């Protein structure tokens, strides 16, 4: 039981595997010259299984993740066909017509001191919530970049994450992990899982490298969850009764012209029984339709996707589009860490990419393992329990947050939207929150925020973007007058900042071209 945890084996080499390897190896020093004595990290990747190209959108957290790993942002942009993402623009979610609203990454101006939501209520007919409180929604509507070429790498004028080519990203991470961080890369197929007396995984058997022993095994083998699922039989908790989408049709579309603008946000356009993502990379657009197969036929879903491509790109692009179908069962494992095995990525769970939660969960999982790496087997179960509690909480919050997007919709044009508002499909906690939000707006002191996936600001953006009404306070508070005058100042400051950024920031494509020509400075 006092066996020191110093040999970690990661099974699977997609973005989840290599991102986990990079995050852990950046925290724990690997000294290959010490042979089997020091900390070791081995990634076993099948040479035969192609990686699935999901997760093309990241959160702003990816900036510090890359920076901690020691990857240059310039190299990242050049190697991964990366682009800037400043948030999401939701089209047609409210009524199915021309309505749209923004969820920018930047929190409302002055968010640490004044809650602007109540003060915006009186102006809601004149200005969208996001426009009133953040400079960012207008910037991404203009397809502007969040910074300038003279801004140092990873720094910003307005907060941002990335859109990226997942295949190229895994390759960059692999190179960095092996060449700079001392990760051992083994290409082999796993043929057996060998147990120890206590039920732990002692080693994995491979076709070309024999048995590979380890103290901790990280299952990054994708949806099939070779270790946590197949070997240990930890079941998937289905969330299909809450989130209906279980099928995706994905296409990659070329720009009509290589100088076409690149969107600096994810576009999410609601359909009859799902929604279409549109992610702009410098080289192509990733466009896909994620829908509920219980509410939509593949044929109709594909028609809707092609219509979108025809309208937003060209008839020609739609005519030549080839689609790849991905089926998934929305949900997560009943637990993620069992004995000496922990699952990260699709082996832990999968849901629709509505708020790009896949990669951030990988980052958070690997960061927690890196930080809380159990000193020995004796305390591993305690860390595992912490990990499971934390990530079950996070999965629940993600699921509720995604569900919120659907239940605020006023669409009645298809059973899908009506079913989404059925009481039985809404988690209790979310129902309680909504009852409360009718009388008070979300605010950052609502919860112990350390483990929250989505800050209260995100709830504000979705609620007020979707026309949710919070009743004005029935009583007057002693701080009202001061808050009102401060709010007026903040609204004005935001308008000024937006005007200034609109004139000073380049277009997304211009900046990306400059990164390719000149690169960012580190300072």
């Amino acid at each position, binding site marked *: 039981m006092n066996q020191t945890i110093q040999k970690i084996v990661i099974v699977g080499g997609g973005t989840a595997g290599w991102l986990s390897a990079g995050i852990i190896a950046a925290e724990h020093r690997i000294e290959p010259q010490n042979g089997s004595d020091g900390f070791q990290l081995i990634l076993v990747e099948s040479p035969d299984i192609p990686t699935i190209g999901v997760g093309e959108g990241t959160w702003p957290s990816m900036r510090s993740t890359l920076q901690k790993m020691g990857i240059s942002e310039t190299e990242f942009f050049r190697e991964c066909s990366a682009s800037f993402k400043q948030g999401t623009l939701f089209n047609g979610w409210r009524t199915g017509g021309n309505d749209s609203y923004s969820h920018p990454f930047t929190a409302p101006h002055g968010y640490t001191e004044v809650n602007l939501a109540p003060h915006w209520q009186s102006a809601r007919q004149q200005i969208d919530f996001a426009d009133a409180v953040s400079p960012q929604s207008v910037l991404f509507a203009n397809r502007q970049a969040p910074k*300038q*070429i*003279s801004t140092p790498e990873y720094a910003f004028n307005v907060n941002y994450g990335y859109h990226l080519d997942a295949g190229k990203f895994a390759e960059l991470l692999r190179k960095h992990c092996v060449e700079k961080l001392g990760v051992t890369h083994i290409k082999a197929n796993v043929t057996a899982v060998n147990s120890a007396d206590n039920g732990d995984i002692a080693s994995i058997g491979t076709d070309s490298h024999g048995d590979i022993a380890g103290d901790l095994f990280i299952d990054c083998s994708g949806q099939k969850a070779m270790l946590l699922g197949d070997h240990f039989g930890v079941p998937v908790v289905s969330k299909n009764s809450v989130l209906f989408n279980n099928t995706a049709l994905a296409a990659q579309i070329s720009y009509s012209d290589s100088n076409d603008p690149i969107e600096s946000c994810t576009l999410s356009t609601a359909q009859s029984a799902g929604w279409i993502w549109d992610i702009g990379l410098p080289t192509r657009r990733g466009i896909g339709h994620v829908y509920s197969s219980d509410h939509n036929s593949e044929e109709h879903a594909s028609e809707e996707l092609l219509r979108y491509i025809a309208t937003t790109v060209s008839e020609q692009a739609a005519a030549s589009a080839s689609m790849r179908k991905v089926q998934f069962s929305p949900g997560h494992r009943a637990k993620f860490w069992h004995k000496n095995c922990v699952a990260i990525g699709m082996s832990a769970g999968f849901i629709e990419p509505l708020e790009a939660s896949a990669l951030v969960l990988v980052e958070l999982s690997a960061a927690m393992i890196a930080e809380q790496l159990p000193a020995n087997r004796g305390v591993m179960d305690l860390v595992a329990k912490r990990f499971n509690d934390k990530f079950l909480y996070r999965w629940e919050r993600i699921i509720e947050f995604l569900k919120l997007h659907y239940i605020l919709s006023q669409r009645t044009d298809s059973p899908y939207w009506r079913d989404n508002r059925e009481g039985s499909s809404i988690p209790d906690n979310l129902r309680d929150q909504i009852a409360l939000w009718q009388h008070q707006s979300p605010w950052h002191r609502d919860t112990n925020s350390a483990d929250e996936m989505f800050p209260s600001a995100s709830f504000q953006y979705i609620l007020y973007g979707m026309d949710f009404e919070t009743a004005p306070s029935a009583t007057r508070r002693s701080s009202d007058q001061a808050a009102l005058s401060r709010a007026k100042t903040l609204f004005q400051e935001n308008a000024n900042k937006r005007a200034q950024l609109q004139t000073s920031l380049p277009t997304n494509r211009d900046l990306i071209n400059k990164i390719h020509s*000149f690169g*960012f*400075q580190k*300072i």
Partner: protein
Amino acid sequence: MSNFVIVDSKLHTNLKVNTSRSAELGDNVMYTMTYPMEFRDIQSCYPIFFTKDPDSGQFYPAALLGFEEGDNLFLDKDSWQATYIPMMIRRQPFLIGFQPDPSQGKDATKPVVSIDMDNPRVVAQGNDESGETLFDEAGNPSEFLQQTIGRLESIHRGLEHNKGFIAALLEHELLESFTLEITLNDGSHNKLMGFYTIAEEKLQTLSGDTLAKFNTQGYLQSIYMAMASFSRIRAMIDKKNALLG
């Protein structure tokens, strides 16, 4: 906007260039690009900092002339009050470019001098105002034009040298950002942002090998000149206060 054309003895026979100093002629700049070969002269008059080209984000050394946009403290009505005027100021309104010169070999190039016809220094043809001519009556380059070409060539070499110098500074993390906050006699605050200077603490940790290499490349002298030039700020603050009266 600029309107550069290649200097031509046939087209520009009567063209004159006004070489006096004034705000109207474009000398009211807050800072100007410089390069190590010029540092000795620059540091005798101006502080040397580093800043980024907004179009490329690339660093270059700059001589500081004032504390705010459009403010050149060395410009006093129609004269420049300093013993040395930076080359990048004196080159106006000319630029140098290079064209292939197959007559001299496969990769050979020859310098081509361009002039910005929209620059206020360019005196319209036939105008009687004083100024320097570019060509003599026989169509040969005037002494002024020859000096100009000489300046442009040294600027060109200087900018090439800058690339290596800046790369070396960045590689050894010898640049650090700094904000200059100045309080003037009238109580006003001026804050200068977007400038970088030599990271002296980092410099002190360089290995003997690196220092020796820097010495051979001429970078070491440039680094110390840039550091020493810092003390010119005091004189500039005094100038500014004197202007406030």
